[in-house]
């Protein structure tokens, strides 16, 4: 879901792009964060917690809490709530602490 009309703010949406999540193509707008684009596409589970492997999702939305860590273009622990989505990006759920090899 995206807010299209806002009583006060005016959105200047960037151009439409596409990225890959879980092997599926997802549409997004330039200028959105990865987590926002996923949220708009109805994706709630971004990763699993490191000890009990419980689902983790969008939480602080300002890059502080680590809840939105995902693997982006092969790189783990990316804070998707403050990282802009890009055309052709490959985004994956992160299970556990992230692998660097």
């Amino acid at each position, binding site marked *: 879901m995206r807010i299209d009309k806002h009583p006060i703010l005016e959105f200047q949406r960037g151009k439409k792009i596409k990225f890959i999540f879980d092997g599926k193509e997802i549409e997004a707008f330039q200028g959105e964060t990865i987590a926002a684009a996923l949220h708009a596409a109805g994706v709630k589970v971004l990763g699993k917690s490191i000890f009990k492997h419980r689902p983790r999702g969008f939480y602080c939305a300002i890059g502080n809490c680590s809840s939105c860590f995902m693997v982006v273009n092969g*790189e783990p*622990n990316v804070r998707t709530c403050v990282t802009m989505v890009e055309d052709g990006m490959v985004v994956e759920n992160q299970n*556990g*602490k*992230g*692998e*660097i090899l």
Partner: protein
Amino acid sequence: MIKSAEVVIIGGGITGCSIAYNLAKKGVKDVVVIEKDYLASGATGRCGAGVRQQWGTEMNCKLAMESIKFYETANEVLEYEGDIEFKQGGYLIVASTEKEHQQFKKNVKLQKSLGIEVNQITPEEATKIVPYLNTENIISATFCPKDGHLNPFTTTDAYAKAAKRLGVKFYTNTEVTGIKTDNTKITGVITNKGEIATSKVVNAAGGFSKEIGDMVGIDLPVYSERHQILVTEPVEPTQGPMVMSFSLNIYCQQTPVGAFIMGRGDANEPRDLRRTSSWQFLDEMSKTVTELLPALGGLRVIRQWAGLYNITPDKQPILGSVKELDGFYLAIGFSGHGFMLAPMTGLLLAEQILGEKTSIDISMLDKDRFERGELVLEPSVV
């Protein structure tokens, strides 16, 4: 506060706690540890917590070997309800200069003669142990699988709790401000919270040991140097051993929780007991580690901090009594490796204080060896 004690130990780091435990275990009543901040607030809680047997002098090899044997069963021996988190992933020490390569040959020969499981290996063999090691400038490496690292906080806690059960009293947030003597022997300790009458004092004050010597007018041949260290975000198990280079000035390990800890020192630091951290360290450390272990380049740094190495002219500790003052004992000058020697430090000091024959002859580690010119130079320090 207690009025008198058999032995007063100044310093609640790993050294002080190990000495206290060993004394109490041998049946000494009224052992007191005085710590100006909290336990492990000094070098102990700030250290890399690596333990290795790959040393260049027979003395350090022996002290480390016996200490590692202790750490292997310390959870059980100290009846610790927590975990000292001893991970024996080995130490991979790389040689990137011809001088180091030759020195390591000698070291390995010595270490093998003492029964240490160690080998000098080729750069290719080293990449079987750490696949992402950049071998471009590496001539050879040495590897001992029994080396490793532990958690310095829980290890100190394990010693302290065991010591407390045996009756040792700990006074934290209490600072020793003076030592009373009648010129030839110790009579008491003055703290900011009261005085304790005693005939025996152990200086285990780490980076502040020289200041304790000054209290009794003994000029101790040690100085303190700031060493810095950082920790990264945790990732899945990636690196088995501690990777170390003397010429590149780096050591780097991955803790069981997955965080990487890495540090280095700078011999040109002003010797003023500063324990602040600097951006220069962060800059140098990141460059060195991404050069040697490129795979770690993308990791985020969580925190950096600093602590004091207490250094002697030959990089070996000063252990035992002093001739000028009866009842004054030293366990200082660990030169950056006092954590790994602590189990033996504690045992040897306890033995000496009780007049027993020490498990290892430590007479050559007295403070007067420098005056005599009998240095036992340790070549392999970072």
